[in-house]
Protein backbone atom coordinates (compact mmCIF):
# COMPACT_ATOMS: atom_id res chain seq x y z
CA UNK A 1 0.00 0.00 0.00
CA UNK A 2 1.09 3.55 -0.61
CA UNK A 3 1.42 4.65 3.02
CA UNK A 4 2.62 2.34 5.74
CA UNK A 5 4.07 2.10 9.21
CA UNK A 6 4.99 -0.42 11.85
CA UNK A 7 4.00 -0.20 15.47
CA UNK A 8 5.05 -2.50 18.32
CA UNK A 9 2.60 -2.66 21.23
CA UNK A 10 3.59 -5.18 23.91
CA UNK A 11 4.22 -8.52 22.19
CA UNK A 12 2.38 -7.55 18.99
CA UNK A 13 4.16 -6.06 15.97
CA UNK A 14 1.63 -4.38 13.69
CA UNK A 15 2.09 -3.64 10.01
CA UNK A 16 -0.34 -0.94 8.94
CA UNK A 17 -0.97 0.12 5.39
CA UNK A 18 -3.30 2.81 4.11
CA UNK A 19 -4.50 4.26 0.82
CA UNK A 20 -4.18 7.72 2.38
CA UNK A 21 -1.38 9.45 4.22
CA UNK A 22 -3.42 11.17 6.95
CA UNK A 23 -4.23 8.16 9.17
CA UNK A 24 -0.60 6.99 9.04
CA UNK A 25 0.71 10.44 9.98
CA UNK A 26 -1.73 10.56 12.90
CA UNK A 27 -0.69 7.06 14.04
CA UNK A 28 3.01 7.91 13.83
CA UNK A 29 2.40 10.89 16.09
CA UNK A 30 0.53 8.81 18.69
CA UNK A 31 3.16 6.07 18.70
CA UNK A 32 6.32 8.15 18.32
CA UNK A 33 7.56 7.17 21.80
CA UNK A 34 7.11 3.42 21.28
CA UNK A 35 10.18 1.24 20.71
CA UNK A 36 10.87 0.63 17.02
CA UNK A 37 12.04 -2.72 15.73
CA UNK A 38 11.54 -2.66 11.98
CA UNK A 39 13.50 -5.91 11.56
CA UNK A 40 10.98 -7.92 13.55
CA UNK A 41 8.42 -9.80 11.46
CA UNK A 42 4.89 -8.46 11.67
CA UNK A 43 2.36 -10.41 13.74
CA UNK A 44 -0.73 -8.61 12.48
CA UNK A 45 -1.58 -6.63 9.38
CA UNK A 46 -4.10 -3.80 9.20
CA UNK A 47 -5.16 -2.29 5.91
CA UNK A 48 -7.18 0.86 5.41
CA UNK A 49 -8.38 0.97 1.87
CA UNK A 50 -10.87 2.69 -0.37
CA UNK A 51 -13.99 0.71 -1.19
CA UNK A 52 -13.56 1.42 -4.92
CA UNK A 53 -10.39 2.84 -6.39
CA UNK A 54 -12.01 6.15 -7.34
CA UNK A 55 -13.48 6.61 -3.88
CA UNK A 56 -10.02 7.40 -2.67
CA UNK A 57 -10.50 10.83 -4.23
CA UNK A 58 -14.19 11.29 -4.76
CA UNK A 59 -15.69 10.74 -1.35
CA UNK A 60 -13.03 9.12 0.73
CA UNK A 61 -14.26 6.45 3.08
CA UNK A 62 -12.08 3.98 4.89
CA UNK A 63 -12.63 0.24 4.91
CA UNK A 64 -10.85 -1.75 7.55
CA UNK A 65 -9.13 -4.93 6.47
CA UNK A 66 -6.17 -7.13 7.25
CA UNK A 67 -5.52 -10.73 8.16
CA UNK A 68 -9.08 -10.95 9.48
CA UNK A 69 -12.08 -9.01 8.29
CA UNK A 70 -15.53 -8.42 9.68
CA UNK A 71 -17.82 -8.59 6.66
CA UNK A 72 -20.38 -6.09 7.89
CA UNK A 73 -17.96 -3.52 9.34
CA UNK A 74 -19.11 -0.09 8.23
CA UNK A 75 -16.71 2.10 6.32
CA UNK A 76 -15.77 5.29 8.16
CA UNK A 77 -15.21 8.72 6.63
CA UNK A 78 -11.56 9.62 6.10
CA UNK A 79 -11.69 12.18 8.91
CA UNK A 80 -12.03 9.17 11.20
CA UNK A 81 -9.10 7.33 9.63
CA UNK A 82 -7.27 7.23 12.95
CA UNK A 83 -10.27 5.55 14.58
CA UNK A 84 -10.38 3.08 11.69
CA UNK A 85 -6.69 2.28 12.20
CA UNK A 86 -7.14 1.75 15.94
CA UNK A 87 -10.25 -0.38 15.36
CA UNK A 88 -8.31 -2.39 12.81
CA UNK A 89 -5.49 -3.00 15.29
CA UNK A 90 -8.01 -4.17 17.91
CA UNK A 91 -9.73 -6.41 15.43
CA UNK A 92 -6.59 -8.14 14.21
CA UNK A 93 -5.49 -8.91 17.76
CA UNK A 94 -8.95 -9.93 18.98
CA UNK A 95 -9.45 -12.38 16.12
CA UNK A 96 -5.96 -13.49 15.26
CA UNK A 97 -3.80 -13.69 18.36
CA UNK A 98 -3.01 -17.21 19.60
CA UNK A 99 0.12 -16.88 21.70
CA UNK A 100 -1.67 -15.62 24.79
CA UNK A 101 -5.15 -15.72 26.23
CA UNK A 102 -6.72 -12.43 25.31
CA UNK A 103 -9.05 -10.73 27.76
CA UNK A 104 -11.24 -7.75 27.06
CA UNK A 105 -9.92 -5.94 30.11
CA UNK A 106 -7.95 -2.88 31.05
CA UNK A 107 -5.12 -3.28 33.54
CA UNK A 108 -2.87 -1.27 35.81
CA UNK A 109 0.08 -2.53 37.83
CA UNK A 110 2.09 -1.66 40.90
CA UNK A 111 5.11 -3.51 42.29
CA UNK A 112 4.80 -6.22 39.63
CA UNK A 113 1.18 -7.03 40.47
CA UNK A 114 -1.77 -6.28 38.22
CA UNK A 115 -5.34 -5.15 38.76
CA UNK A 116 -7.52 -6.14 35.82
CA UNK A 117 -10.80 -4.40 35.02
CA UNK A 118 -13.04 -6.35 32.70
CA UNK A 119 -16.30 -5.11 31.24
CA UNK A 120 -18.24 -4.12 28.19
CA UNK A 121 -17.91 -0.80 26.46
CA UNK A 122 -19.44 1.77 28.82
CA UNK A 123 -18.38 0.00 32.02
CA UNK A 124 -15.71 2.64 32.50
CA UNK A 125 -12.78 0.20 32.47
CA UNK A 126 -10.85 2.38 30.04
CA UNK A 127 -11.44 5.63 31.94
CA UNK A 128 -10.59 4.11 35.32
CA UNK A 129 -7.37 2.60 33.98
CA UNK A 130 -6.41 5.88 32.29
CA UNK A 131 -7.02 7.89 35.47
CA UNK A 132 -5.16 5.39 37.66
CA UNK A 133 -2.35 5.43 35.10
CA UNK A 134 -1.99 9.18 35.63
CA UNK A 135 -1.46 8.53 39.35
CA UNK A 136 1.00 6.08 40.90
CA UNK A 137 -0.04 3.11 38.78
CA UNK A 138 1.55 1.80 35.60
CA UNK A 139 -1.01 1.61 32.79
CA UNK A 140 -0.82 -1.82 31.15
CA UNK A 141 -3.65 -1.31 28.69
CA UNK A 142 -7.13 0.15 28.34
CA UNK A 143 -8.75 -2.50 26.14
CA UNK A 144 -6.94 -5.84 26.15
CA UNK A 145 -4.81 -7.71 28.65
CA UNK A 146 -2.91 -10.82 27.60
CA UNK A 147 -2.43 -13.80 29.89
CA UNK A 148 0.59 -16.03 29.37
CA UNK A 149 -0.72 -19.63 29.45
CA UNK A 150 2.60 -20.93 30.79
CA UNK A 151 3.29 -18.57 33.68
CA UNK A 152 -0.19 -17.16 34.29
CA UNK A 153 1.30 -13.65 34.17
CA UNK A 154 -0.53 -10.65 32.73
CA UNK A 155 1.18 -8.95 29.80
CA UNK A 156 0.68 -5.31 28.89
CA UNK A 157 -0.87 -4.14 25.66
CA UNK A 158 -0.63 -0.36 26.11
CA UNK A 159 -2.12 0.98 22.90
CA UNK A 160 -3.14 4.60 22.84
CA UNK A 161 -6.06 4.89 25.27
CA UNK A 162 -9.41 5.47 23.62
CA UNK A 163 -11.12 8.19 25.68
CA UNK A 164 -14.81 8.54 25.01
CA UNK A 165 -17.27 11.36 25.64
CA UNK A 166 -17.13 12.58 29.30
CA UNK A 167 -13.80 10.83 29.89
CA UNK A 168 -12.14 13.22 27.43
CA UNK A 169 -12.62 16.30 29.66
CA UNK A 170 -11.56 14.36 32.77
CA UNK A 171 -8.22 13.49 31.20
CA UNK A 172 -7.76 16.83 29.41
CA UNK A 173 -7.78 18.43 32.86
CA UNK A 174 -4.84 16.27 33.92
CA UNK A 175 -2.47 15.94 30.95
CA UNK A 176 -0.84 18.26 28.43
CA UNK A 177 -2.00 18.53 24.81
CA UNK A 178 1.21 16.76 23.70
CA UNK A 179 -0.19 13.53 25.20
CA UNK A 180 -3.47 13.74 23.29
CA UNK A 181 -4.45 12.96 19.71
CA UNK A 182 -6.96 15.01 17.70
CA UNK A 183 -10.59 15.12 18.87
CA UNK A 184 -12.67 12.79 16.69
CA UNK A 185 -16.17 14.17 17.13
CA UNK A 186 -19.38 12.31 16.29
CA UNK A 187 -17.93 8.88 15.53
CA UNK A 188 -20.28 5.84 15.73
CA UNK A 189 -18.92 5.46 19.29
CA UNK A 190 -19.44 9.13 20.20
CA UNK A 191 -16.58 11.61 20.65
CA UNK A 192 -13.18 9.98 20.84
CA UNK A 193 -9.76 11.32 21.71
CA UNK A 194 -6.65 9.16 22.08
CA UNK A 195 -4.36 9.47 25.06
CA UNK A 196 -0.69 8.56 24.72
CA UNK A 197 0.29 6.49 27.79
CA UNK A 198 2.97 7.91 30.06
CA UNK A 199 6.57 7.23 28.92
CA UNK A 200 7.23 4.97 31.93
CA UNK A 201 4.22 2.79 30.98
CA UNK A 202 5.52 2.48 27.41
CA UNK A 203 9.07 1.74 28.59
CA UNK A 204 7.76 -1.04 30.89
CA UNK A 205 5.45 -2.61 28.32
CA UNK A 206 7.44 -5.85 28.12
CA UNK A 207 7.44 -6.39 31.89
CA UNK A 208 4.84 -8.97 32.97
CA UNK A 209 2.81 -8.54 36.16
CA UNK A 210 1.22 -11.12 38.45
CA UNK A 211 -2.60 -10.90 38.43
CA UNK A 212 -3.59 -9.77 41.95
CA UNK A 213 -7.17 -8.55 41.55
CA UNK A 214 -10.00 -9.06 39.08
CA UNK A 215 -12.68 -6.37 38.96
CA UNK A 216 -15.84 -6.35 36.85
CA UNK A 217 -16.98 -2.70 36.94
CA UNK A 218 -20.38 -1.26 36.17
CA UNK A 219 -20.72 2.48 35.74
CA UNK A 220 -23.79 4.05 37.40
CA UNK A 221 -25.72 3.54 40.61
CA UNK A 222 -24.66 3.69 44.25
CA UNK A 223 -21.15 2.47 45.11
CA UNK A 224 -21.21 -1.28 45.65
CA UNK A 225 -18.68 -4.09 46.01
CA UNK A 226 -19.51 -7.76 45.80
CA UNK A 227 -17.06 -10.64 46.03
CA UNK A 228 -17.77 -13.32 43.44
CA UNK A 229 -16.83 -16.99 43.51
CA UNK A 230 -14.35 -18.80 41.30
CA UNK A 231 -17.10 -20.29 39.15
CA UNK A 232 -18.71 -16.94 38.34
CA UNK A 233 -15.31 -15.36 37.72
CA UNK A 234 -14.49 -18.18 35.31
CA UNK A 235 -17.75 -17.72 33.39
CA UNK A 236 -17.26 -13.94 33.16
CA UNK A 237 -13.67 -14.43 31.99
CA UNK A 238 -14.70 -16.85 29.23
CA UNK A 239 -17.15 -14.18 28.05
CA UNK A 240 -14.42 -11.54 28.25
CA UNK A 241 -11.97 -13.55 26.18
CA UNK A 242 -11.93 -13.22 22.42
CA UNK A 243 -9.78 -16.30 21.79
CA UNK A 244 -10.66 -18.71 24.63
CA UNK A 245 -12.18 -21.28 22.29
CA UNK A 246 -9.35 -21.05 19.77
CA UNK A 247 -6.73 -21.73 22.44
CA UNK A 248 -8.28 -25.06 23.46
CA UNK A 249 -6.93 -26.64 26.62
CA UNK A 250 -4.20 -24.02 27.03
CA UNK A 251 -6.93 -21.39 27.35
CA UNK A 252 -8.92 -23.57 29.74
CA UNK A 253 -5.88 -24.03 31.96
CA UNK A 254 -4.99 -20.33 31.93
CA UNK A 255 -8.51 -19.17 32.81
CA UNK A 256 -8.86 -21.84 35.47
CA UNK A 257 -5.72 -20.67 37.19
CA UNK A 258 -6.68 -17.00 36.92
CA UNK A 259 -10.15 -17.66 38.41
CA UNK A 260 -8.74 -19.80 41.24
CA UNK A 261 -5.80 -17.65 42.25
CA UNK A 262 -7.18 -14.14 41.83
CA UNK A 263 -9.76 -12.56 44.14
CA UNK A 264 -12.65 -11.29 42.00
CA UNK A 265 -15.27 -8.60 42.59
CA UNK A 266 -18.11 -6.87 40.80
CA UNK A 267 -18.32 -3.17 41.58
CA UNK A 268 -20.74 -0.36 40.81
CA UNK A 269 -19.76 3.31 41.01
CA UNK A 270 -21.47 6.63 40.20
CA UNK A 271 -18.38 8.61 39.13
CA UNK A 272 -14.68 8.18 38.42
CA UNK A 273 -13.56 9.39 41.84
CA UNK A 274 -15.58 6.74 43.66
CA UNK A 275 -14.55 4.08 41.13
CA UNK A 276 -10.88 4.85 41.75
CA UNK A 277 -11.45 4.84 45.52
CA UNK A 278 -13.05 1.38 45.31
CA UNK A 279 -10.11 0.03 43.29
CA UNK A 280 -7.63 1.44 45.82
CA UNK A 281 -9.66 -0.02 48.70
CA UNK A 282 -9.77 -3.50 47.10
CA UNK A 283 -6.06 -3.27 46.35
CA UNK A 284 -5.27 -2.48 49.99
CA UNK A 285 -7.39 -5.46 51.04
CA UNK A 286 -5.70 -7.76 48.51
CA UNK A 287 -2.28 -6.84 49.89
CA UNK A 288 -3.16 -7.98 53.40
Amino acid at each position, binding site marked *: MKHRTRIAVGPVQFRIGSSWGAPITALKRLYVGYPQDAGRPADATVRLFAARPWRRWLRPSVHIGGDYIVPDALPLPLSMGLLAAEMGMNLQVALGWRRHLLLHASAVAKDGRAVMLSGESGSGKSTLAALLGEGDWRLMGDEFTLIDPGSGDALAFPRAVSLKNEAIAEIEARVGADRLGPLLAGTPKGDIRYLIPRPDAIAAMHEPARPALLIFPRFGGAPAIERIGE*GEAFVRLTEASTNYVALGEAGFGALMRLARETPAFTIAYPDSASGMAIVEHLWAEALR
Partner: protein
Amino acid sequence: MADPQYRAAGEGALRVEPLGDLVAIFDRRSMQTHLVVAPMPEILAALEAGSCDAATLAARLANDFDLSGEGDVRAIIGERLEELAGMGLVEQV
Protein backbone atom coordinates in the same frame (compact mmCIF):
# COMPACT_ATOMS: atom_id res chain seq x y z
CA MET B 1 -37.72 -52.23 27.52
CA ALA B 2 -34.50 -52.41 29.52
CA ASP B 3 -32.98 -49.18 30.87
CA PRO B 4 -30.27 -47.80 28.61
CA GLN B 5 -26.66 -48.50 29.47
CA TYR B 6 -24.11 -45.71 29.54
CA ARG B 7 -20.35 -45.69 29.27
CA ALA B 8 -17.86 -43.12 30.55
CA ALA B 9 -15.62 -41.08 28.27
CA GLY B 10 -12.31 -42.79 27.59
CA GLU B 11 -9.37 -42.27 29.91
CA GLY B 12 -7.86 -38.80 29.52
CA ALA B 13 -10.76 -37.50 27.43
CA LEU B 14 -12.02 -35.15 30.12
CA ARG B 15 -10.20 -32.67 32.30
CA VAL B 16 -12.29 -32.11 35.42
CA GLU B 17 -11.48 -29.10 37.62
CA PRO B 18 -13.42 -28.03 40.73
CA LEU B 19 -14.07 -24.31 40.70
CA GLY B 20 -15.73 -23.13 43.88
CA ASP B 21 -19.38 -24.21 43.73
CA LEU B 22 -19.01 -25.36 40.13
CA VAL B 23 -17.02 -28.01 38.35
CA ALA B 24 -15.49 -27.14 34.99
CA ILE B 25 -15.02 -29.98 32.55
CA PHE B 26 -12.88 -29.58 29.46
CA ASP B 27 -13.65 -32.21 26.81
CA ARG B 28 -10.42 -32.78 24.88
CA ARG B 29 -12.30 -34.44 22.02
CA SER B 30 -14.75 -31.62 21.29
CA MET B 31 -12.61 -28.83 22.87
CA GLN B 32 -15.79 -27.73 24.65
CA THR B 33 -15.98 -26.47 28.21
CA HIS B 34 -18.91 -27.57 30.37
CA LEU B 35 -19.78 -26.09 33.74
CA VAL B 36 -21.74 -28.45 35.93
CA VAL B 37 -22.86 -28.84 39.54
CA ALA B 38 -23.55 -31.89 41.73
CA PRO B 39 -24.49 -34.64 41.03
CA MET B 40 -22.94 -34.50 37.52
CA PRO B 41 -19.27 -34.88 38.56
CA GLU B 42 -20.22 -37.68 40.98
CA ILE B 43 -22.14 -39.52 38.26
CA LEU B 44 -19.20 -39.22 35.85
CA ALA B 45 -16.80 -40.53 38.48
CA ALA B 46 -19.07 -43.46 39.41
CA LEU B 47 -19.51 -44.44 35.77
CA GLU B 48 -15.75 -44.88 35.41
CA ALA B 49 -16.05 -48.20 37.30
CA GLY B 50 -17.73 -49.63 34.20
CA SER B 51 -20.67 -49.18 31.84
CA CYS B 52 -24.05 -49.63 33.47
CA ASP B 53 -27.67 -48.47 33.67
CA ALA B 54 -29.25 -45.92 36.02
CA ALA B 55 -30.21 -48.50 38.68
CA THR B 56 -26.69 -49.91 38.93
CA LEU B 57 -25.24 -46.42 39.04
CA ALA B 58 -27.68 -45.46 41.83
CA ALA B 59 -26.46 -48.46 43.82
CA ARG B 60 -22.82 -47.45 43.27
CA LEU B 61 -23.53 -43.87 44.37
CA ALA B 62 -25.43 -45.10 47.44
CA ASN B 63 -22.17 -46.66 48.65
CA ASP B 64 -20.55 -43.23 48.88
CA PHE B 65 -23.45 -40.85 49.46
CA ASP B 66 -26.53 -40.78 51.66
CA LEU B 67 -29.28 -40.81 49.05
CA SER B 68 -32.19 -41.40 51.46
CA GLY B 69 -34.86 -38.74 51.09
CA GLU B 70 -33.71 -37.97 47.54
CA GLY B 71 -36.93 -39.31 45.95
CA ASP B 72 -36.77 -41.70 43.02
CA VAL B 73 -32.99 -41.84 42.76
CA ARG B 74 -33.02 -44.21 39.81
CA ALA B 75 -35.28 -41.89 37.77
CA ILE B 76 -33.25 -38.79 38.69
CA ILE B 77 -29.97 -40.45 37.73
CA GLY B 78 -31.55 -41.70 34.50
CA GLU B 79 -32.43 -38.09 33.59
CA ARG B 80 -28.98 -36.79 34.48
CA LEU B 81 -27.35 -39.54 32.39
CA GLU B 82 -29.48 -38.48 29.44
CA GLU B 83 -28.35 -34.87 29.91
CA LEU B 84 -24.70 -35.93 30.16
CA ALA B 85 -25.12 -37.94 26.96
CA GLY B 86 -26.58 -34.82 25.31
CA MET B 87 -23.42 -32.90 26.26
CA GLY B 88 -21.30 -35.71 24.86
CA LEU B 89 -19.70 -36.42 28.24
CA VAL B 90 -21.06 -39.99 28.44
CA GLU B 91 -22.19 -42.30 25.68
CA GLN B 92 -25.27 -44.48 25.48
CA VAL B 93 -24.14 -48.02 24.71
